[in-house]
């Protein structure tokens, strides 16, 4: 990239060959005081989450809420329909024959919880997202194959284009690129 009329910067990205060096790099970056950074890998790597201190447990709470809602809603629907909206004698059973209402209640619980899990995850991840700056990096296509990337973002208070690049090079990255925004 040319020094003249340089566009706005999203961050600096380093490419690694294997998960081990990526995790190591992430740890060193964190020790170096960098906070706003993210790793990009072809498969989930537990150690990387730890290295980057990613601990987001909101999803579990969401799913619990969804499940409870489905449960109450499912049973409520059946109770309302059978006892309030259309009360009628069926096979000599009482209007509120709760044992018969359990299966549907259960299914509603599962359904609601499952929907929350998936769409909650997508929402928290901000997906679907048509475009993201990291895709500007030509080699980034390898992130979905066999390459491992670490990107320190410009938003990071400690970020300085030149220092950060030098720091990244010192991590033994196979290549370091500036990610344009």
């Amino acid at each position, binding site marked *: 990239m040319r020094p003249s009329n340089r566009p706005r910067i999203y961050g600096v990205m380093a490419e690694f060959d294997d998960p081990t060096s990526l995790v190591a790099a992430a740890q060193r970056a964190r020790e170096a005081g960098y906070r706003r950074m993210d790793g990009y890998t072809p498969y989930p790597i537990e150690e990387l989450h730890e290295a980057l201190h990613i601990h987001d*447990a909101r999803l579990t709470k969401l799913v619990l809420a969804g499940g409870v809602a489905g449960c109450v809603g499912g049973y409520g629907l059946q109770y309302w329909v059978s006892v309030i909206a259309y009360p009628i004698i069926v*096979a000599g059973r009482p209007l509120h024959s709760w044992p018969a209402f359990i299966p549907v209640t259960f299914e509603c619980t599962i359904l609601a919880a499952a929907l929350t899990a998936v769409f909650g*995850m997508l929402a928290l991840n901000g997906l679907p997202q048509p475009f993201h700056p990291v895709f500007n990096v030509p080699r980034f296509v390898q*992130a979905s194959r066999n390459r491992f990337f670490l990107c320190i973002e410009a938003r990071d208070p400690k970020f300085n284009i030149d220092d950060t690049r030098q720091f990244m090079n010192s991590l033994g990255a196979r290549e370091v690129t500036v990610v344009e925004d």
Partner: protein
Amino acid sequence: MTERRHEGHGVVDGAASSPVIAPGYTFGSVTDKISSIVLTRGASHGWWLGFLVAFLLANMLFVSLGYLVLKGIGIWGNNQPVAWAFDITNFVWWIGIGHAGTLISAILLLLKQTWRTSINRFAEAMTLFAVACAGIFPLFHTGRPWLAYWMLPIPNTMSVWPQFRSPLIWDVFAVSTYATVSLLFWFVGLVPDLATLRDRSESKIGRVVYGVFALGWRGSARHWQRYDMAYLLLAGLATPLVVSVHTIVSFDFAVAQLPGWHATIFPPYFVAGAIYSGFAMVLTLAIPIRAVYGLEDFITSRHLQNMAKILLVTGLIVAYGYTIEAFMAWYSANTYEEFMMANRMTGPYGFAYWLLILCNVVTPQLLWFRRIRSSVVPLFVISLIVNVGMWLERFVIIVTSLHRDFLPSSWGRYAPTIWDISTYVGTIGLFLALLFLFLRFLPMISIFEMRTILPQAKVKE
């Protein structure tokens, strides 16, 4: 997620000797080998031939259903007293087959069975297609299919609501939930691979289409963390679900008081049967597919052997179910139960019963031998036999119970018509057609999960 790290060790996993993936593969080679099936290899003549046959059969299904709606259920052999026959038999058979996918994805995931990785993707696809076929029957077996939406809790001008004490309503909820969750599970699993295909596709259309469905996935660590959590939660939810679905299907019979239906053994015995038929179908599909697409390295003999073991176990559970049915008929000292069992064994449909015993109880005993378990052809044949047996099981339960119940004056018999058969075969066509499309356009093995079981996927301390 500690279990994933353990999967990292999965070259030789557990006691089994043969590996779950052949040595020598890299992240790149795994990715290229699987994605090339979709991206570069294109459609072979064999694929076209298979797809065409399946597609024609599927059209036979549409014709049959069209004529059915035009003329009425009377074109089938159903009558009084045998008001259910092929229709519900096929429904239960398909829904049972549809149980393997979610089971493999969810339960084996929770049980940390890394070998599931290379078969869960098309097992899930198989589930979806089987459930689609299953769904056709409850809908079209009604006398007035165009009014089937009355089974949904929709406010209507008559202000009448579904009758929630009916197992059929439980079915509606169970099956639709199962279909939805299976679809989500399958799609979520696909997202990272779709991203791979997006990045590797040469054609513009490919990039766009795959790109759209990849939802802009970029493999961010933050995403992976939530993704893992969601996937695990789904697995946790799908596990009780898969058990509940066939339990509820079994309620269709167990809740009725017809001798031969009204049995407490039904839920566990149906679930076992479902897994049994499901795995049989996975084997039936996996064995030819791995041969055709040269995936022996990914779907190794280890996989086949494990599935064979599961077949054996579930087969024994099912056999136990048959035994208990017969025992209870005798032990109950209930004249109707006793007669039902005797009639099943020696009545006009006795041949079906003994054939079913041969297929579901006798044949799988061969799987006790490692030699059989580890040789492909016998395994394939056995899996086919089990599929037949499981269909017979449902036929026997439904027809032999209905055709001679309480009042001898109402005894009758049932024989299928050409339309019964064309509808059934048609659904098989639909199933295969969908499967062929899947093989052609989506990665049949989960690429990113295959990467995790490579030795180099492990982070060295």
